[in-house]
């Protein structure tokens, strides 16, 4: 599953049609939840734990470059991880690449994070 290519660590997470247009889906890498989103601006990946109260962003409402958490409406910028409507800290974003119909996420950042903080949602 792992494909090393350049900086960081690229992990193949799903096929591009696994995620319907303008929706998000959850993937799990090394025990961390990552939300992957498909929009007209491309695919994005952010840490799937809302910085506000840990809601599942992958179940949120998606627009071109934002996702709104389904729990309390915090709107996260998919490009920067910034919370646009609250004074909260950024969440993590991960580079995404689509190749031959496969979606790859660069999870190099995970190595800098501590034990998995999964937030909400069904545990695998």
């Amino acid at each position: 599953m792992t494909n090393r290519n350049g900086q960081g660590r690229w992990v193949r997470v799903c096929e591009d049609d696994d995620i319907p247009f303008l929706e998000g889906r959850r993937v799990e890498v090394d025990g961390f939840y990552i939300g992957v989103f498909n929009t007209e601006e491309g695919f994005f990946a952010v840490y799937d734990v809302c910085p506000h109260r840990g809601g599942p962003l992958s179940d949120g409402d998606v627009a071109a470059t934002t996702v709104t958490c389904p729990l309390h409406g915090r709107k996260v910028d998919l490009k920067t991880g910034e919370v646009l409507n609250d004074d909260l800290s950024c969440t993590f974003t991960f580079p995404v690449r689509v190749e031959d119909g496969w979606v790859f996420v660069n999870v190099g950042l995970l190595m800098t994070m501590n034990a998995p903080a999964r937030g909400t949602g069904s545990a695998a």
Partner: protein
Amino acid sequence: MSKRLKVVVVGNGIAGAALVDELLKEDPEEVSITLYGDEKVGTYDRVRLSEYMAGTVGLEELGIRPKEWYEERGIDLRLGVRVIGVDTKSREVMGSDGDWVVYDRLVFATGSQSFVPPIPGYDKEGVFVFRTVEDVEQMLEAAPKKAVVIGGGLLGLEAAWGLVARGAEVTVVDRAGHLMNQQLDRAAGAMLRKEIEKMGVGVRLEALTEEISGNGKVEGVRLQDGEELSADMVVVCAGIRSNTKLAHECGIDTNRGIVVDGYLRTSVPDVYAIGECAEHNGLVYGLVAPALEQVRVAAECVLGREPTPYRGSLASATLKVMGVDVASVGDVYGEESGSEALVNSNPLKGTYKKALVRDGRVVGAILLGDKAGAPHLLGAVRREAPADEVEALILGSNGEDKAPPLPDEAQVCDCNGVSKGQILVAITKKGVASVSEVGAATRAGAGCGGCKPLIKDILEETTRAAVEEKSYLCPCMKLTTEDVRSIVKEREIQSVNALGEVCGAGKICSDCKVGLTYVVSEVNANRHKEERHARHINDRVHGNIQNDGTFSIVPRTRGGVTTADELRRIADVAEKYEARMIKITGAQRLDILGVKKEDLPNAWEDLGMPSGFAYGKAFRQVKTCVGTEFCRFGVGDSTSLGIEMEKSFENLYTPAKVKMAASGCPRNCAEATVKDVGVVAIEGGKWQVWVGGAAGMDVRKGDLLTTVDSREEAMKVTQAFFQYYRENGRWKERTYDFVPRMGLEEIRKHVLDEESGEPERLRQRLRAAKEASFDPWQEERVKNKTKNQFAGVINDK
């Protein structure tokens, strides 16, 4: 980097945090801040603690900042660390973490602590002070049945209210002759007592506590006159004492507080003190507004500028207790010679207004029972305005007289120090047009929020038009529900995507998509092109998302009637899918809580029951009583009518949720008069139809739309009204706002006048929409499902 000014702030309360904010407003490269806070949680709005205790605000609304907030701003935050030593010669502080930190400027914001008088028994288990989040949490955990609050001041009354709201029986004990004796005169205090007693709080005045009794644990309080009050909790609110110990040990001059001058400087160079630990001109202020005034001056001084010195604050206070409005400012007793009082007292209505006048100028005021005009009065006292400016306000008939316009320099927001002039600039130069926009532009109203009505007045006065906080369906494109509806109709739009192409709504921001979906589906009688991405997760997976990401599912039990077999299946599903709780809802249904998303389709199949739509802006259910079937008082068969209504409306979306009820007699056990639509049977086979009622976030008794002669007619009227609301309601507008907005007469014209043919046309359109609706759990479980819709995690791990 080393050129940065090193500021050490001791104390992370309101004053300390506000100072940090103020310093950050300047070039963040200019200062490096170390912030010590010995409470484990970060800064919060202590002023709203009583609301937290009463459960009306959450911790998050107390404004607690996450650690990352500090990290991003480069602040060295040391939570849970006390400063235990200061060397003012070498300019270093030592924390309980063992670190020495060098400072250029040191600011004490150590606040105060509750003063606990040495009453025998004060150390018993169950004796609390009311000061910190921790105090409140411990009090809540103790869940007292009977509590005694010692101290009838502002804090004591707030604590009492918080406890009452949590269901405790409370008595307030104070040694003074009247409540809030710092802020109110005797007459106002007596009137306040009446109001407080109405809330069910006992009051004992001129009462000295002799002993807190109990064997290790609080069992009661004995007063000096011999009265014994039984209690399992005692809350001591006998005032505050500044935290001066550390400063004193460092050789800084202290008295009641740390002594400061007009620049908030202590007796030691480059050391400042602000907030409740500081004493200025012999006064220690235990209030927010003075602390913030001090912060603004101190910040300038710390940065090496020369601000206008602080000249002391006007004591002003408002009681934040539900249902009792009290505001007080300045001198309220008028003991100085030459003081005169304007008084308007109405004990029947429980209102009391007083302004104290000296040499023709207003120097103090009290408002009780009616806070209208409070900001005007406060401003007048602050400016020592001429007495005739407030005369109408005090003596006017119940404050209905419009207050005179405020002068531009008058301060509107005391928390953030924003003047009317600054707000005017925002309105006229920046074009802000709502209270919330004023807040974003000037921070006015962003503190306690008490000045929001005044901001609204100023907006109205300035724009010369009543400010309707316009409710846009799409705020980005400034489109109302009506705008969107007419675009969809005129251009015959069938999808949210097509709508976005036409008007831009829902493209760059998803906030309005769910609302757009409603309008598109309603106008097309549910024959629109369904786009799952334009539905909320609840509507995508037909359950209500919970705080842990699992879902709750409520099967439809029409009219609240179920069977043994259905109950068995509900029980089986709850067990099989490890539901965390089964809960009987207020709407006579069963809620299975805590089902995982991936289990939802199987759970529905096992249930074999239709969706109760308990998750959407949709028709919910009809609550019923047992009517004539069983009840000996019933005059109409409310149960079967309720079931018929439910069948007629189920599976339909609405602008906001719609709850209904059917009662079989005027005893109204189904509470039909506080529902969006309610029917009540009365003698002679007649039915009343009520609309626009609510008993949720808002409580409103519905309006009697009409009384009809048969259940068939009742059915027809409710159907016409329901569709009328579907077609004319604004997105998220509940019927309790919709009905007053349209006006009852207007609604009657459309839904009752059968001769016009309009009610029948409404019902036809309702039937058309209904034909194209479906039960998402059973009928079309597979339809409208995008790939991996119910998957928990989609990759192999």
